[in-house]
């Protein structure tokens, strides 16, 4: 175990101990802040429902993530090749992307229903934009001298894209993918809160209505764990793929 990880874990444990102590000593009512031990106990108690909900949310997030990442990448590559189209399209993309994504969620529910599809569309939307903008930036930020060198070897635009632009953009693409993991969970949960019959977002919403705050915290705990797991997986992939940094 490396030192940074040990420090992080140590800090986490310290925080939990403090949390537990403060809640117990100050007798904070559980609907304001329950103790960590209570949250863990409740999580264990309703584990099968949480697991189902978590699986649903994870499915929506991962599916939307895959679709969004693929679309974002392909679109970025196409626009990297077609300069005139890019100059036309890019300002519009920036405008659409600058609206907070949650604002589109009611529309997605209206168009795609309250099932998994609306969540997948929303996640694909946010992930697609993030990956697209990161990838395009990376694809265009190549050394002009390196492009000239490849052209002198007889490479065309596709050759330059494949052998130079894509590898150059890989670090930026991976950053986009890493940031998108957390965003995809957030968007899936928020959209679930606004309309669904399943998933962690729905669980949180329903538990709030039932004034079951321990279950709210339990769902938050599961969502955090899933989010952390996805983030760690993509970070590990990033370190492997971008080995030269």
């Amino acid at each position: 175990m490396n030192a940074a990880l040990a420090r992080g874990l140590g800090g986490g444990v310290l925080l939990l101990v403090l949390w537990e102590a403060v809640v117990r000593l100050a007798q904070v009512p559980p609907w304001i802040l329950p103790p960590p031990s209570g949250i863990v106990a409740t999580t264990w108690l309703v584990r099968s429902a949480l697991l189902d909900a978590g699986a649903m949310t994870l499915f929506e997030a991962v599916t939307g993530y895959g679709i969004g990442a693929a679309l974002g990448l392909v679109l970025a590559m196409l626009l990297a090749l077609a300069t005139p189209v890019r100059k036309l399209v890019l300002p519009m993309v920036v405008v659409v992307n600058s609206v907070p994504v949650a604002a589109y969620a009611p529309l997605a529910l209206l168009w795609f229903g309250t099932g998994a599809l609306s969540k997948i569309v929303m996640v694909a939307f946010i992930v697609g934009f993030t990956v697209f903008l990161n990838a395009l930036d990376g694809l265009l930020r190549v050394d002009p001298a390196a492009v000239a060198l490849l052209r002198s070897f007889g490479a065309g635009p596709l050759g330059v894209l494949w052998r130079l632009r894509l590898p150059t953009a890989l670090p930026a693409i991976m950053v986009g993918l890493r940031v998108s993991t957390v965003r995809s969970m957030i968007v899936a949960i928020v959209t679930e809160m606004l309309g669904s019959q399943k998933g962690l977002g729905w669980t949180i919403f329903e538990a709030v209505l039932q004034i079951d705050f321990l279950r709210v915290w339990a769902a938050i705990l599961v969502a955090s764990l899933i989010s952390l797991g996805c983030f760690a997986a993509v970070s590990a992939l990033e370190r492997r793929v971008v080995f030269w940094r």
Partner: protein
Amino acid sequence: MKDAADQLDQLLTVGAMPTARPKLALRGVSRHFGAVQALAKVDLGIAEGEFVTLIGPSGCGKSTLFNIVAGLLEPDAGGEVLLDGVATSLLGKVAFMPQRDLLLPWRNVLDNAILAAEVEGRPKREARETARAMAADFGLKGFESHYPQQLSGGMRQRVALMRTFMFDRDLMLLDEPFGALDALTRAMMQRWLLDIWSRYRRTILFITHDIDEAIFLGDRVVVMSARPGSIKLERRIELPRPRDPALLTTPAFNAIKRELLDAVEEESLKTFAAGAA
């Protein structure tokens, strides 16, 4: 007696050109960038197998000339660039090595060296075999699977040179390949390049800021004028080959150097005056 020797020299140098048709010929090549004229009617011929070095004050249009010969830039209308007597696009026909090594950090030494071969569509495996066989010549044996970040400046430059050599073209363009190296490494690399050149026999056009380097390496030194760049002077270097560092202190070397220094200094002063005006 001396006249006879000169005549013989001349005969020999003419004899060095296999035919009247040079490998590369520039005829009246000019280039404007907007209102700025970078090159003015450059005429230059390079014979097959010849090592020509080009020096000139900074901003004299050397890079523009190189980009034109590499096929990356078009000359203004009226100018002609002939390869083997034919006016064609030079893109992909000249092995070009830019100032910076431009090695790709995600490729190891071998895969950087085969980049050009790969672009040409040669099978990777076969290209890697060729590169592996060449590695010793380029002082890279044992470093085939190192990444550029792990190499010294001199080694990186040798990888870039190997990449240029593997792009199997008769004409090589080297743009100040040793400019960023320290003096000792540079001297070593110069001797090494001559050695490689005598073995692989390519036609080389070599750009440099360094007069010693230009004389030490070249069959002929070409001096460019201040902007707009044109050929101010051509000087054949009849120093015997193989050349070794002792040459740098001989009277013959110094005589040539004085002559070239005068020419370069005159042009540098013009650039300086133009900048001050």
